[in-house]
């Protein structure tokens, strides 16, 4: 396996793994957060505004981790510096 294939395989596999794991874990966290918020809403409908706002802020925090994983996989596939370097070298030869 030459360097070019190695870089391509590593990038694609890592991007898939990143998206997979980075979607699973935040999904679990968000599910727990929403379930707890619904329980709290059922117990205290008066505090709906506060609970909803805090839930959204918390969800944003959790979701940003998923977004980080997504951005990393996008960079690996569409804007990979190592891949561009390999392509430039192979064109140069």
């Amino acid at each position, binding site marked *: 396996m030459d360097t070019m294939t190695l870089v391509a395989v590593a990038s694609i596999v890592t991007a898939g793994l990143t998206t997979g794991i980075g979607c699973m874990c935040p999904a679990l966290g968000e599910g727990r957060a929403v379930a707890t918020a619904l329980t709290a809403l059922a117990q205290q409908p008066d505090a709906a*505004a*506060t609970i909803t*706002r805090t839930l*959204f*802020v918390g*969800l*944003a*925090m959790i*979701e*940003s981790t998923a*977004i*980080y994983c*997504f*951005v990393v996989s*996008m960079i690996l596939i*569409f*804007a990979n510096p190592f891949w561009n370097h390999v392509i430039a070298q192979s064109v140069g030869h």
Partner: protein
Amino acid sequence: MRLSPDDLIFWQHGPVKLNGTIAFTWGLMLALTLGSKLVTRNLTTDLARSRWQNLLEIVVGAIEQQIRDVGLQRPKTYIGFLGTLFLFVAASALCTIVPGYEPPTGSLSTTVALALCVFVAVPVFGIRAQGVGDYLKSYAKPTLVMLPFNIISEVSRTLALAVRLFGNMMSGAMIVAILLTITPFLFPIVMTALGLLTGMVQAYIFFILAAVYIAAATRPSEPGPEKAP
């Protein structure tokens, strides 16, 4: 495959480029300012009012209520900054139903600029509310050990603001673009609707997080919330 509207070049003259991000940003700004100007030209206080004034009253009132809910007791001070953030991000997400338009918030430059505005505005509002000494002391609370972590959190939350908005908007635009090449009739419509929803949620989150950060910076000087009768 274009990652962002940065690569969409409309006009180029030597080193000066007019890319899609700049064009759409200025278009949005023009639409928002001209629209507000037109609506607020002849405001009335009686019951017979134009529907546009009604719309603006609802929007401004809702934003003010949200700012008050976060714990800022004087929303008039902050509604200029926070409301503009919300309206810009929301409008840039809503206009995706116009063909040929790409959301400027789908480019990292725009989101970093917005996040830097928040990064600068938090100390400004904090110093205005508490004075320089008290504001700087708030970094060393509860103990001096927390000082580096507080400074790191300032920078990292700014980065998180920028990357969250960018990732959401970019992924929405990209999913629609990919689906258009695969199943170009019905399915992209569903994803566009979903993108509208996420865009609005992201606008709300950006605005509420900025409000929470400002509230945390101005908190010690704010009068406590009045007890409801």
